[in-house]
């Protein structure tokens, strides 16, 4: 039988099952269940848990664990993720696999502790300094918190890239029945780039500093090629009721769940609406949205912010269809009824 757990706990279980070796964290609401749970679980499993002195330190501890080729993660919420950007940029430059979890809360600044999607730009457009991308996954239920945490490490290692799970206070805090259906990963191999002591091999170094003429330029080209490959191979999305839709709602995470209810409600009210939900925010399903915009003429981006993903929807649609936006930030939750009103006025 499925087990009733919070999103934050399901995420921990997914990471543990995937072979998480080291966790480093710092308290901030609404992600506190993660360090609290792992402080017990990881020690019982004889793995590593450290409560760091700061978000910066936690992220840099992840960097340290990651250079040795093990599965490492940290988690935080929006203000804390801003502080982690230094290490995230370094890890992107050093091409280190790791998992960073952002259980988003309201911003800017200290904001509040309500669920929010205000960190979309920060997550998919870089976040720290330099020209880099993370793979960004957007779960919309507790089951996906578990599954995406589990899958994130394979993705991170496949491409040597930090993966971010971009979730929010609602999904982190809510409980749902979860099927813990993934096999426990054991005997993970240490990759051939990791620092594990130079026994029987030449010494290795991991760095993002490339001062020699042209080296950094080459490195950046290589990174961009990698991001292109990721964009070709790893886009994930789901659609709901789009075949005959007059309007397609684009939404991710918790906003997509609310939107799905709104689609059902709208259809009961005679409005033909469908839902397009990106599961990966980077790579963004631009090609798929672009193709849809050949056939469908109305798009509505629904977000818990004041219009972030809608920019990527517009870029993908590229003028071929009408794109509108509905959103709220700072703890306001868009309701099914508000979406319905917007849809009514749309046509």
């Amino acid at each position, binding site marked *: 039988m499925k087990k*009733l757990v919070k999103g934050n706990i399901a995420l921990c279980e997914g990471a543990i099952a995937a072979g998480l070796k080291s966790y480093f964290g710092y308290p901030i609401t609404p992600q506190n269940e993660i360090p609290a749970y792992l402080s017990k679980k990881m020690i019982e499993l004889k793995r590593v848990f450290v409560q760091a002195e700061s978000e910066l330190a936690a992220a840099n501890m992840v960097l340290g664990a990651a250079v040795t080729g093990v599965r490492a993660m940290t988690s935080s919420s929006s203000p804390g993720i801003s502080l982690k950007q230094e290490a995230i940029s370094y890890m992107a430059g050093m091409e280190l696999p790791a998992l960073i979890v952002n259980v988003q809360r309201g911003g800017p600044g200290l904001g509040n502790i309500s669920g929010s999607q205000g960190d979309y730009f920060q997550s998919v457009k870089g976040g720290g300094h330099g020209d880099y991308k993370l793979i960004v996954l957007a779960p919309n239920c507790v089951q996906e918190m578990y599954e995406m945490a589990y899958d994130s490490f394979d993705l991170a290692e496949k491409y040597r890239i930090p993966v971010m799970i971009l979730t929010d206070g609602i999904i982190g805090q809510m409980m749902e*029945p979860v099927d813990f259906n993934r096999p426990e990963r054991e005997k993970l191999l240490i990759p051939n780039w990791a620092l594990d002591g130079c026994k029987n091999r030449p010494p290795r170094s991991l760095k993002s500093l490339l001062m020699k003429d042209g080296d950094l330029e080459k490195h950046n080209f290589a990174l961009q090629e990698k991001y292109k490959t990721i964009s070709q191979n790893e886009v994930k999305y789901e659609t709901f009721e789009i075949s005959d839709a007059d309007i397609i709602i684009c939404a991710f995470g918790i906003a997509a769940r609310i939107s799905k209810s709104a689609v059902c409600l709208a259809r009961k009210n005679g409005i033909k609406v469908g839902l397009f939900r990106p599961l990966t925010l980077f790579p963004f399903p631009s090609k798929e949205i672009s193709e849809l915009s050949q056939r469908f003429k109305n798009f509505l981006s629904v977000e818990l912010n004041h219009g972030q993903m809608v920019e990527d929807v517009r870029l993908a649609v590229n003028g071929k269809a009408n794109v509108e936006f509905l959103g709220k930030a700072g703890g306001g939750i868009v309701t099914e009824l508000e979406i319905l009103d917007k849809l009514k006025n749309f046509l």
Partner: protein
Amino acid sequence: MKNEIIIAGSCGQGVLLAGVIITQTAIEQNLHTTWFPSYGAEVRGGTANSTTIISNEEIGSPIASNPDVLVVLNELSLNKFMPTAKEDAVIIANSSLISSNIQCNPKTYFVALNDIADLEIKNIKSANMVAIGALLKILEKKHQDKTCVLTLENAFKACRKIFSQKSNLIESNRKALQAGYNFIV
């Protein structure tokens, strides 16, 4: 069938736990369900609430802006959530702490949860479970489609699961559920 249940009260009244028990009961019956709490600084301020949604279809938003079931354990919560409840919502108000003269939706059930808990269970802290017991009976009476009705038996099962680490609490919580259930006739 879909119920959007908000359980609210002051901190320490066990409203989050009450929500978890209801949610687990729904799982025991293979229904779709979600539970969403107030959390963090919000619950340090003195009031707490949780939303449980139960449905035989997939659930979208876990947040209920217009609940059809409201269980309020103190007056502050009644005042906060009453205006959001649907017109025909089922409301259980804890009359041990809420004056029954208060202007309420006609369907309000005033139940002296604290008194029942104190007198019958000898534990005022089990008022939350008395409330759940009462709620189960009310919903049982209300719903036509009996396949979706949460049963007391499954609530007992949920209790055993939720308190599996603290088995000494199972019996008193079971009794409290029964007492609440019996109170509604």
